[in-house]
């Protein structure tokens, strides 16, 4: 039997694919903002917080990094309702993605904080800045500049990993692909097209982040 490829269905499917891609972009945008914020707090807490907090953050990072994202997602989406917290799939996906990304970026941000010479903090303190101002105005911008490439990679990885949230019926790109292939019976072609959309998204996202980083953090960001 010879199989012939058929992309005739594509014309009627662009709307669904675009809607799915938009949801994927929304998910990763929220995750990037919330995850980065959480990881800055986490990395700072791990360095300067009380001992108990340091330990808790350390364990959080280890647990998330050594278990699959899919299991974390199921744990949050199916597990939380049994203690009375019922989450909408989109919220559950955003929560799982943020918690997952933060575990990786806490380490990345932490490495950046360590890379800023202590003289910077001492100089800022000597100028009369308060510790919080020193962190936000002096240490953090320099740390972010150092770790920006690693942060960018992690965001792209998270975007690719977001494909699995289709499993809790979030209507993102993969979910739309599942629906399309069920309707067209053209599974290979459907997933091929959607894979290429993901490829374009990841290339575009990387370009956007590198460009945005240059603007925000100044020259020298790659």
């Amino acid at each position, binding site marked *: 039997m010879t*199989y012939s490829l058929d992309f005739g269905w594509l014309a009627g499917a662009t709307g669904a694919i675009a809607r799915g891609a938009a949801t994927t972009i929304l998910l990763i945008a929220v995750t990037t903002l919330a995850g980065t914020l959480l990881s800055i707090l986490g990395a700072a807490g791990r360095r300067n917080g009380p001992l108990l907090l340091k330990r808790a953050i350390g364990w959080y990072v280890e647990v998330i990094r*050594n278990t699959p994202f899919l299991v974390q997602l*199921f744990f949050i989406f199916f597990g939380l309702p049994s203690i009375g917290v019922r989450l909408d799939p989109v919220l559950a996906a955003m929560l799982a993605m943020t918690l997952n990304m933060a575990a990786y970026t806490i380490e990345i941000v932490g490495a950046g904080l360590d890379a800023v010479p202590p003289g910077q903090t001492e100089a800022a303190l000597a100028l009369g800045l308060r510790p919080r101002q020193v962190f936000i105005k002096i240490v953090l911008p320099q740390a972010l500049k150092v770790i920006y490439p690693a942060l960018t990679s992690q965001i792209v990885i998270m975007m*690719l990993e977001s*494909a699995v949230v289709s499993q809790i019926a979030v209507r993102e790109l*993969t979910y739309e692909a599942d629906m399309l292939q069920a309707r067209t019976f053209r599974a290979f072609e459907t997933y091929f097209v959607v894979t290429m959309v993901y490829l374009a998204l990841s290339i575009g996202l990387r370009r956007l982040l590198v460009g945005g980083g240059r603007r925000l953090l100044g020259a020298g960001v790659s």
Partner: protein
Amino acid sequence: MIEFTFWDILRNLLLAARWTVLLSLAAFMGGAVVGMIVLFFRIAKNKWARRLASGYIALFQGTPLLMQLFLMFFGLPMVGLRIEPWTAAVLGLTFFASAYLAEIWRGGVDALPRGQWDAGASLGLHYLQELRLIILPQAFSITRAPTVGFLVQLIKSTALTSIIGFEELVRTSNAINNATFEPFKVYGLVALIFFVMCFPLTQYARSLEQRAAAR
């Protein structure tokens, strides 16, 4: 209705975990073999061979693993193979792993000083001998930490094969959860089993990293 005790759940999950381990090993070994071939192309003298390998790596690193698995699952029948979750899972993860491993090892090859190649050439070794005797042993040795780190990622990635119907740990846990309605317990145990598999490897990778940094 069947009653599941805690031990029933744990026993079934551990039995399913065998498949997770087996799949991880098969994909890691397959990925190492294919990854070597990709590496040869990636560091070849021919520009087009290098470009081809770069494109291969970019393709696998720039698309979701879930999509790669779907394409494998639905693409295999087109080349005359039967749709079978195990085949699709092993092949999909093998190609996925090969791209990442080739890129990790290429980093090792690039990190070696140019003099290593020159010294090999001056001893009269030809290209393949240089690679086998001088370059690759050193490249593998300095990339041991990221290679182990990737193995952890690969083990976690096997969870996705549950979606294309391969009966590993996560798929079994879904079935158990549907029967017991105890998601906290079931997925908590699954997370624990994955943690027990991955955490020692993570620690090992970390110790390798520290040893390399100390040198």
